[in-house]
């Protein structure tokens, strides 16, 4: 159920021959993108679309490259990533911990699950306005919002994953007189890892979305604020460039995640 | 009347990465099931029996040679050839009820005939002993019952040739015998050509007119024996027949690759 995976990840087991064929086919895709970009460039240059917010692509690329030498986009991006990383760490740690605890303990389940289920459907942007009044607009607010958004997919997947851990495994551990805590850490946690990883992967994309959202609503720094700021500063080229860097970031994170997943959970999808 | 189905010098080579020659699954197999014959193919595990059957069904092309249906070579799954999978649970459509699964092959028919066809499918379900389970879902049934659904569905397709790919290997011993009897009864009634692939020697002898034995890799045809046991066959008496026991001894030792002397006499 790794919804946030890549397209290619699914077809990893293809043979060399079909990969080569596929690479050949992909040329059409690249041509398609080039055509779209060309159309964009031409439509802007020749004035088919008259708007201050429709700069030629070349101008966007140029802005993006200039930013590499020093500019606000990368600084903003770093600020966003820092918050996203902290929020992700907090949210996913809590998600895994509570998911396992609630999955294994009936008492905790009865005590906490209804509460979690009530909070779960709130779209994150909605909690930002009231939270501003308690947490201000600084990191506390944004990290809280990001953690919240990260927590739910991780929790839900972990919780469901724990439920599918075969009792045989746990009974096996018991026959070896393994302690409860050790069973949790050494048997249940590893057995749940694939489910946790799926949750984490869904969460990674949500994390960035919500980081940007929180910066837009309660902005002062970060790439989300930067986008709104550039909107007001009439610099669409920088806005598009920022979106481009965000896309690259999102892509890199997803790739990194897949690589780590394949390394650390080699049994993923094998059981 | 069932149609003849033949393998004409069939060779199958699988491409393997890093090897130029590839893996040779079968080398030059020639074998034919006569019209309305029940042919069994036995072989050790992993000899690629299922591959042979998949080629017969037109699901996989042979590397060399031809598959002939009534003398005509086939390329795609031809009408009238029905495949009964070992993994019955996977071949049934979980989102359809039992009756809708059986209806599947008939859904190409004109709309006004659907009612009659549905009645026919009920009848097939009755024939396989699934009276009253029409509206259940496959996952609500036991393994043996699921395979009965698959059999009923195969019947609905009006098979000229029925390909059975270890169809009873995943059910318990008693259910297995019941299903064997059921298939035999249906075969005797409908007179289709049946090709059974199995690693179970007794099952092959009990069901088939002839048994083809495949050898180890690369798999080639080792021997074909005539069963010659009287029909109708019975789970108790047939299996106690001295000839049954003799055949069993012979085939088992062939598969275990022991030489036994008195084989030729049979």
């Amino acid at each position: 159920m790794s919804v946030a995976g890549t397209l290619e990840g699914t077809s990893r087991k293809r043979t060399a021959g079909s990969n080569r064929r596929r690479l050949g086919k992909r040329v059409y895709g690249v041509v398609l993108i080039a055509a779209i970009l060309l159309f964009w460039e031409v439509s802007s240059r020749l004035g088919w679309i008259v708007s201050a917010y429709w700069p030629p692509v070349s101008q966007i690329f140029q802005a993006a490259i200039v930013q590499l030498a020093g500019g606000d986009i990368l600084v903003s991006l770093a600020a966003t990533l820092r918050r996203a990383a902290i929020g992700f760490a907090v949210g996913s740690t809590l998600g895994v911990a509570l998911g396992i605890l609630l999955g294994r303990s009936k008492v905790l389940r009865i005590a906490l699950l209804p509460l979690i289920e009530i909070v779960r459907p709130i779209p994150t942007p909605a909690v930002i306005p009231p939270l501003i009044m308690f947490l201000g607009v600084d990191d506390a607010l944004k990290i809280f919002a990001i953690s919240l958004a990260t927590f739910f997919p991780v929790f839900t997947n972990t919780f469901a994953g724990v439920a599918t851990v075969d009792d045989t495994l746990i009974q096996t551990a018991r026959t070896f007189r393994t302690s409860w805590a050790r069973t949790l850490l050494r048997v249940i946690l590893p057995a749940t890892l694939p489910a946790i990883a799926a949750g984490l992967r869904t969460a990674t994309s949500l994390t960035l979305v919500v980081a940007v959202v929180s910066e837009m609503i309660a902005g002062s720094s970060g790439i989300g604020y930067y986008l709104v700021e550039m909107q007001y500063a009439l610099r669409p080229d920088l806005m598009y460039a920022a979106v481009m860097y965000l896309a690259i970031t999102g892509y890199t994170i997803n790739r990194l995640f897949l690589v780590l997943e394949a390394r650390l959970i080699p049994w993923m999808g094998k059981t | 009347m069932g149609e003849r189905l033949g393998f004409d010098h069939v060779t199958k080579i699988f491409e393997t990465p890093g090897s130029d020659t590839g893996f040779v699954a079968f080398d030059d197999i020639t074998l034919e099931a006569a019209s309305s014959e029940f042919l069994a193919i036995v072989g050790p595990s992993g000899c690629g029996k299922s591959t042979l059957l998949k080629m017969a069904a037109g699901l996989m092309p042979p590397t060399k040679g031809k598959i002939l249906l009534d003398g005509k070579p086939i390329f795609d799954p031809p009408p009238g050839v029905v495949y009964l999978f070992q993994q019955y649970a996977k071949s049934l459509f979980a989102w359809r009820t039992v009756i809708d699964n059986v209806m599947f092959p008939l859904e190409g028919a004109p709309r006004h005939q659907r009612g009659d066809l549905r009645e026919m499918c009920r009848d097939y379900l009755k024939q396989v002993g699934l009276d009253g389970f029409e509206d259940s879902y496959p996952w609500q049934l036991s393994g043996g019952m699921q395979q009965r659904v698959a059999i009923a569905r195969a019947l609905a397709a009006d098979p000229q040739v029925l390909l059975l790919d270890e169809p009873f290997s995943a059910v318990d011993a008693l259910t297995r015998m019941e299903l064997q009897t059921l298939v035999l009864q249906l075969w005797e009634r409908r007179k289709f050509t049946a090709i059974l692939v199995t690693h179970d020697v007794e099952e092959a002898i009990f069901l088939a007119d002839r048994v083809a034995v495949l050898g180890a890799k690369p798999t080639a045809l080792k021997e074909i024996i005539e069963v010659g046991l009287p029909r109708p066959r019975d789970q108790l008496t047939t299996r106690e027949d001295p000839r049954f026991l003799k055949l069993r001894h012979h085939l088992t030792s062939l598969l275990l690759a022991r030489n036994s002397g008195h084989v030729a006499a049979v």
Partner: protein
Amino acid sequence: MRKVFLIGFAVMGLFVLAIQRATASDLEKVRVSIIPINDVAPLFVAMQNGYFRELGLEIDTTPSAGGAAGIPGLIGGSFDVVYGNVVSVLLASQQGLDVKVIAPGTKVDQRETDTTPILVRSDSGIKSGKDLEGKSISVNTRNNVIWLYARAWIKATGGDPDKVTFKEIPFPQVEDALRQQRVDASFLVAPFSVISRQKPGLTAIANPYSDIQPGVDVGQYITTGKLLSTKPETIKKFAAGLRKGAEWFNANRTSDAILAVISGYTKTDASILKSVALGAAPLRSDLTQVKKTMDLMIENKLLTGPIDLAKIIDPMAL
């Protein structure tokens, strides 16, 4: 899985560390929420000229687009001072929030520097509030100062504001919306209003601030009553520094130096800014002007009744 985190965070951490700069000083920090528009130029002038440093303050500005997070952030403790508009202050006060005006921010008292017009398509024939009945006008946010004066202008020119549809459109989108006929009129601020009028097709038919209430106090610097009583010196120093900035701004508001300052924090091209006339910065808040705004709010049902302005506006702002 632990390794995943470690490696992931190490990568991100390095990236962040490489870019973040450490800042340390023994000056007292004042966190100010601003809206990145021309109006806060005196604050930035004071910062750049070192007026705050001389007083022992370090100003940390936090821009907020549209200013939506300003007062809530003040209440939440993220800011010590917020630049906000008069309507928000009165609304917050009515709801029982402890806000205090400590310095004036923006005042519109000269028609020639009033860059907040109502724009319409030149061929629309709309000239008055009466003409707008049954049509639509855009404001950036409903229930704010822009909305209030748009309503007042419609009423003053013979129209019924309740018969006009108010649409919320952010300033940057107004020009497109007008030209694409998605709205019939727009109450717009600089620099957007100036840029839009440079191209043909759009006409300004009114300047509601100047038309309705010349000298209106649009923006103020706000803090909380709590801060005012716990750190009175700090707040006083802030107001003093800001005033010095405003004085310098008023003396130099036609110079290019100002443009550089504004371009620095709005990130807008100086060439665009050049075409925008800058009004003088107010040195004190005007109680009678705020009272007029309050009456307008009551009339438009934004306020349920009058508020004791003396309690909201601290004497240091006067």
